[in-house]
């Protein structure tokens, strides 16, 4: 699994270009997250792809050839944090609810909704941790699940910033 972080223009069609590129290179994406950055014109992507280092290097270089991709960097072998967020709706009744809560606590999950026959757990962390919780919850009956896919950031002074400043929108654009 390779992790690539990219800064892209925050405008329609860019996600399509990135996805189209990975398809063309026959690289399977495990997860791809996009979100805005502190600069509204720039979005940040975390791409987790099933490929080897050579494939990741090629993907990184090919991504940077796209006009709308400002920077792409393979951070797989650098010290970094990876986080995934999940909402899991589990079947729960009066009897097993306390036991369930206990388990969720161990995984540092939070119960964010309780209904007579179910509850929703919010949990964030590494993929392994979420998979672990999921394993434990499965016997109770997982009714629904939503996961964000991974976001990643290199640790410490290893900064990955968008290149320079994008020119401010023209004054007349107001």
């Amino acid at each position, binding site marked *: 699994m390779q992790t690539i972080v990219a800064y892209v223009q925050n405008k329609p069609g860019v996600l399509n270009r990135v996805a189209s590129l990975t398809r063309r290179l026959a690289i399977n994406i495990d997860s791809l997250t996009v979100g805005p950055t502190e600069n509204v014109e720039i979005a940040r992507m975390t791409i987790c792809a099933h490929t080897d280092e050579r494939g990741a290097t090629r993907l990184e270089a090919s991504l*940077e050839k796209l006009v709308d991709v400002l920077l792409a960097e393979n951070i797989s072998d650098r010290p970094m944090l990876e986080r995934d967020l999940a909402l899991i709706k589990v079947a729960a009744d009066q009897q097993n609810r306390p036991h369930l809560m206990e388990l969720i606590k161990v995984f540092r999950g939070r119960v964010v909704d309780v209904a007579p026959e179910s509850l929703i757990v919010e949990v964030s962390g590494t993929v392994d941790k979420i998979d672990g919780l999921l394993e434990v919850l499965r016997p109770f009956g997982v009714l629904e699940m939503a996961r964000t896919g991974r976001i990643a950031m290199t640790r410490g002074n290893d900064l990955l910033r968008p290149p320079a400043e994008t020119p401010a929108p023209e004054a007349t654009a107001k």
Partner: protein
Amino acid sequence: MKLTGAEILCETLTRLGVKHIFGYPGGAILPVYDALGKSKLHHILVRHEQGATHMADGYARATGGVGVAMATSGPGATNMVTGIATAMLDSSPVVCITGQVSSKLLGSDAFQEVDITGITMPITKHNVVISKVEDIARTVREAFIIANSGRPGPVLVDITKDAQQASAEFDWEASAPRLPVKRQRNNHDQEEFDRAVELLNSAKRPLILAGRGIMLSGAMRTFEQFVHTSDIPVAMTLLGIGCFPASDPLNLGMMGMHGEAWVNNAIQEADLLIAVGMRFDDRVTGDLRVYARNAKKIHIEVDRAEINKNVKVDAAIIGDAGETLAALLPHIHERDHSEWMTHITSSKGDSAVRDIQSLPDSGHLYAAHVINDLWKVTAGNAIVVTDVGQHQMWEAQYYHHNAPRTLITSGGLGTMGFALPAAIGAKMARPDAEVWVVVGDGGFQMTMCELATIVQEKINIKIAIINNGYLGMVRQWQEFFYDKRYVATPLVAPNFAALANSFGIHGETVTTRKDVVPTIETARKSDQTVLIDFRVEQEDSVYPMVAAGAALNDMIRRPNNPLVETATEP
């Protein structure tokens, strides 16, 4: 000054230095055509939009500038797809402008609506939809920059009809390009550079692999200097032909599937390969597992994504070919590789069996004769535009190019039907040059409708059809690999000379070798287009041949057997 979007487009193109537009009108691009009529831009009406893109491509390849093609929405735009992909694979700077339905109709399956930016996303360097008149000038200026910077490529600009019709203030200063600010990678890696220098100065059997990147960089002179200082022999890719004079003793000729045997053998024996502006395409490497196993490899390449893509290299220098070679030059020792060179050329002897050009007239007309005679008569000074197939390989083997941009051919995509329209584009770009089309009877029939364009535009090019009655290269594969089962390759063709006549073009048919030179000479004297139908040997093959996936030195050679009807002894 308030102008319509269509007028802004024409004004922008004019200011960008555009003189010719190859296109075909239609509903969604009509406002632009109305404005074109009032501009000084020369519009060439094609007969099929694929032709427009090939013409723009040929125009770009002949000059190094940007070629412009135009079409309407829907089928007009989809007809461009093959031409766009052709330009993409060969890094040719082409800007395609398409009309699009009005922005309020987008996504409604309106008449002649097609998502052409979606369709062309993987085959353009960049593409964009413009739905606001205010964006036209800036976006078109950006398209020209993208098309012809770094590694060039096609850009498609799709303009909605309402944006063409709406009016806006036209201000050249305010519409300056505003391309996204990208990370500037520091591509200079001193370690890689030093390693390359060391390899260059210590190699005993080095070989340069020269590609089209040298031409795109305009680095011919620096390259020549580099070659002569280091005294390293040069092998050419198909698209590299012309970037280094064929007459130079260090030019060995073409490498690859139909490359010269001594070149392919030299690659396999070399201890160092210096790849400049080429991308180790499968057609030049053969089986990668046994490709140049004795050689260290240096890759000089502008596109980082090409490094280690097909062949793992020992030193990669990312950057413009000319700048990189100039940076290397002061570090390169003057070397003498004459021993290695003698070794390579000594094996030419056994390869020369394919040299049938000096054969006496045996009553048979071979394509090689035709092309070799064409080379002699034109003194190698013509721009030759070829199609794809056997004739293309024979051209590369028997027409010797000394100047850059004199061989125009579809390499990467291998697009049949490319030659005739691309030659029209080349002639528009270089009106003083002698332009020859070398095309097979198959490929010619794909785009021969452009003969009408030639007549309408009063263009003077010469067309040599290498007519063997087969889809020759496919037939050759069937002969070698499918036990001569010629399925769907025998090809009925019209009488090409008579066909030309019906267009108002002079046509000739040549069936014997003695008529080749006189017919070419007469054609050259004409100030109009002449088509010559050369009826050549039907089942001749291109030799040598490295079968797809075979090792580069594992070549099928011209059989030394008179029964094959290809006399081999001088």
